[in-house]
């Protein structure tokens, strides 16, 4: 695989890729006018709500703010162990 990457120069961690990743995150926040830290608060609160109904697999919850065309989508992923009631 390394030989393959070397031969075909698969870009990762390059300046262009870094710029694109930073841009994506920045623009999603810009477009939503989302203040720094706000999303983290929401994630904590959402996790607490879900945790009232389900036992969650520890340290597996994932939140991801994605760009879909010019709109943003919040993708939340909870791994559920069992229902609480």
């Amino acid at each position: 695989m390394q030989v393959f990457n070397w031969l075909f120069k698969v870009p990762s961690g390059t300046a262009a890729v870094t710029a694109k990743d930073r841009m994506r995150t920045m623009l999603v926040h810009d477009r939503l006018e989302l203040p720094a830290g706000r999303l983290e608060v929401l994630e904590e609160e959402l996790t607490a709500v879900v945790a009232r109904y389900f036992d969650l697999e520890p340290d597996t919850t994932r939140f991801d703010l994605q760009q879909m065309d010019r709109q943003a989508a919040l993708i939340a992923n909870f791994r559920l162990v069992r229902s609480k009631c």
Partner: protein
Amino acid sequence: MSGRVIVITSGKGGVGKTTASANIGVALANTGASVCLVDMDIGLRNLDILMGLENRVVYNLVDVVEERCKLRQALVKDKKMPNLNLLPAAQTRDKTAVNAEQMKKLCEELKSMFDFVLVDSPAGIESGFENACAGAEEAIVITTPEMSAVRDADRIIGLLEARKDEITQYRLVLNRIRPKMVANSDMMGVEDVLEILSIKLLGAVPEDEEIIISTNKGEPVAGTDNTKSGLAFRNIARRLRGEEVPFMDMDAKSDTWVTRIVNFFNPVRV
């Protein structure tokens, strides 16, 4: 006649708005269309320099709006093409010298005289930008592949979206692309920027020293043959006229022995 009013805008300064305006104007006029370039950067007049017309400016846009002269008296004809005209900005006033209503009225009048009215917007998102957009039905967003320019372009796109009722179409011109840096993945390429901004492409213009030379001469590159940037601007003009023109192939091609062999047998198209 009812022409098209197109505002050329970017948010960030220094990405090539005025250069693009001059060149798209020249290229459109070359196709036979009648064109009026409107310099809306009031107080920071530059379009006349790029066109090599700075010595012919008598009246300006503010003189027209404040009725010190007739519109026709303020229009400066291009040296080579009589179907290309410039309405210069005032150099001594500021952005508050005109308002949106006056701009709308002016665009209406220009529309009845020309096939294309290209409005060169000032940088920023304040009143100067608002006024430049006031009479427009279409927009061209200019950016370079730099992060700060792309961010500002995104802001402008947001503002154009908010004017959807008036500005029905907007497309991107990606300026100053350095194909080698893109190929080495040192810089974002056309595809990257389009994906980030979710916008349609009108044209991609490579970085070209000829632009500096042509600015110094006061003869936009679009009017001369044999320059890559001039060809890019001529393609943009043809696309504006509704022609399907394939995009220049400038995007990332990995530089390996395999691609070198392939490229050896398939010389890179420009």
